[in-house]
């Protein structure tokens, strides 16, 4: 796998063109934008309900104080903004590309096929309320916990968020690739997709075995927990290394699986 610098630059440039393209789409169909905004705001409220609940209870749950809980919910909300903004639209359309034969068209383009599938659309409506609420929660909880807002903290947090983003991409793309074999998207996607709900709450409320599976086997719990765990200083040596290793491994796995799947592909439609 030799990757040339000019190839990377081309793909980055294309990403910005795709992003611009999506923005133009939103400007054309404004109603779609507002519709998405309203919907996501209500969903945001159903996440805030958990924060209200925890604060009203006012006790430490498995050693996690309400303020620390807000760090987790804030991170969760930011991760939702990243997922819905960059990946969700693309992943949901993926099985459609196989069914309708648009994948064949993408194959002829002079870009990486996986890149085309993953980044063709950018959603602008869903991330807005989530980003605002997520960052607000983090800032408020950060202050209340009295964590020194030093450069190392902020940069470290952003770094772990990046690592989580790569893990999110890999873990959620993986079940979609199954569509190469099943053609129609089925319940199996749904089930893995819904595992995302486990990030609603800090991993400390789950039994040990579930935490281990969620961190190391199918790293779905990695996504919101690692950045938060870093902030509240609960990181041990092993988890610290895992922050660097997990994105590399998961990205490799998804890449290899993708290559295997493409080899199996035999244009379903037309």
């Amino acid at each position, binding site marked *: 796998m030799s990757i040339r610098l000019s190839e990377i630059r081309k793909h980055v440039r294309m990403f910005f063109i795709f992003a611009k393209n999506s923005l133009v789409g939103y400007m054309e*169909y404004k*109603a*779609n934008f*507002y*519709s*998405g*905004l*309203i*919907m996501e*705001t*209500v*969903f945001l*409220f*159903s996440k805030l*309900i958990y924060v*209200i*609940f925890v604060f*009203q*209870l006012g*006790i*430490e*749950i*498995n*050693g996690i104080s309400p303020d620390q809980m807000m760090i987790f919910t804030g991170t969760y909300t930011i991760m939702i903004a990243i997922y819905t903004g960059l990946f969700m639209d693309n992943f949901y359309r993926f099985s459609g590309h196989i069914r309708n034969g648009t994948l064949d068209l993408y194959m002829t383009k002079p870009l990486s096929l996986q890149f085309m599938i993953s980044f063709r659309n950018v959603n602008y409506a869903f991330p807005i309320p989530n980003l605002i609420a997520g960052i607000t929660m983090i800032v408020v909880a950060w202050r209340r916990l009295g964590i020194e807002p030093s450069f190392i903290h902020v940069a470290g947090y952003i770094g772990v968020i990046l690592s989580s983003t790569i893990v999110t991409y890999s873990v959620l793309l993986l079940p979609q690739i199954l569509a190469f074999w099943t053609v129609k998207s089925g*319940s199996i996607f*749904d*089930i893995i*997709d*819904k*595992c995302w*709900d*486990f990030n*609603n*709450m800090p991993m*400390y*409320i*789950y*039994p040990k075995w*579930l935490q281990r599976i969620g961190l190391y086997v199918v790293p779905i719990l990695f996504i919101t927990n690692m950045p938060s765990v870093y902030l509240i200083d609960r990181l041990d040596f092993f988890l610290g290394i895992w922050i660097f290793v997990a994105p590399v491994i998961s990205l490799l796995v998804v890449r290899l699986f993708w290559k295997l799947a493409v080899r199996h592909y035999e244009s379903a439609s037309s």
Partner: protein
Amino acid sequence: MKALQKYKRTYILALQNAMEYRTDFLMGIISGGFIILVQCFLWTAVFRSSPQEIINGYTYSQIIIYSVLSGVVSKLVSAGFEGEIANDIKTGGLSKFIAQPIHYFSYRICSFFGEKTVQTGVVLVLFVVLMTVFIQIWGFPLRVGQIVMFLVSILFGMLINFLLFYSISALAFIITEVWGVYIAFNQGVYLLSGAIFPLNIFGDTFATISSYLPFQYVVFFPVKIILGSLAVHEIVSGLLLQAVWVTVLLVISKLAWDSGMKKYVAVGG
């Protein structure tokens, strides 16, 4: 008699359709089960961390049963036809109902209950299994009267939910890109019906406000009957209020649709 034939046909068609997709519904319940699991883990952690035996008026067994049953009930009463209605209005599929001798409302409600008949069957089996497990673990008392009242209140809950979504569907007459509003409304009803948390744990003010709204009669009230936390007179007055809400919502949906039909221009088709 002939007039009833067409409604029976619509009902049977929807029933057959639901029979075809019964695994889809079951899978829907299973994937919806993750949030129930999260809920159960959360409550377990809360009860372990708290020195109290009763939190917000619920014991541990009560809150676990509440979380599981509210998840199942909310899935059972859910509507899900609002997208189809919006499509009918947007693309002109509604026009054929103006010409045909079947009213759109009757068509929708027959097909809704046709679908729900099969889903109720699936849920009843699940319910028996779940209750047997709960009774085994906690020695939870359950009377036949309670189950009957529960089923009646579920029927009313379905009606209320149907009417809520039928009324909101009329928004498609004025907004073309209505999907976001629908999903938002769906999630709003989900929250306010008590599907995530029981409504009375957020304090008295919230409980009082929600008692004046129809939403709590969709999930919260039926599940509370099973929990046995309501006296007989409370159950009866609750059922009556459900009936009142059905009537009120019937009027609202009629008004909404009448004013919508005035705007309808029958594009497409």
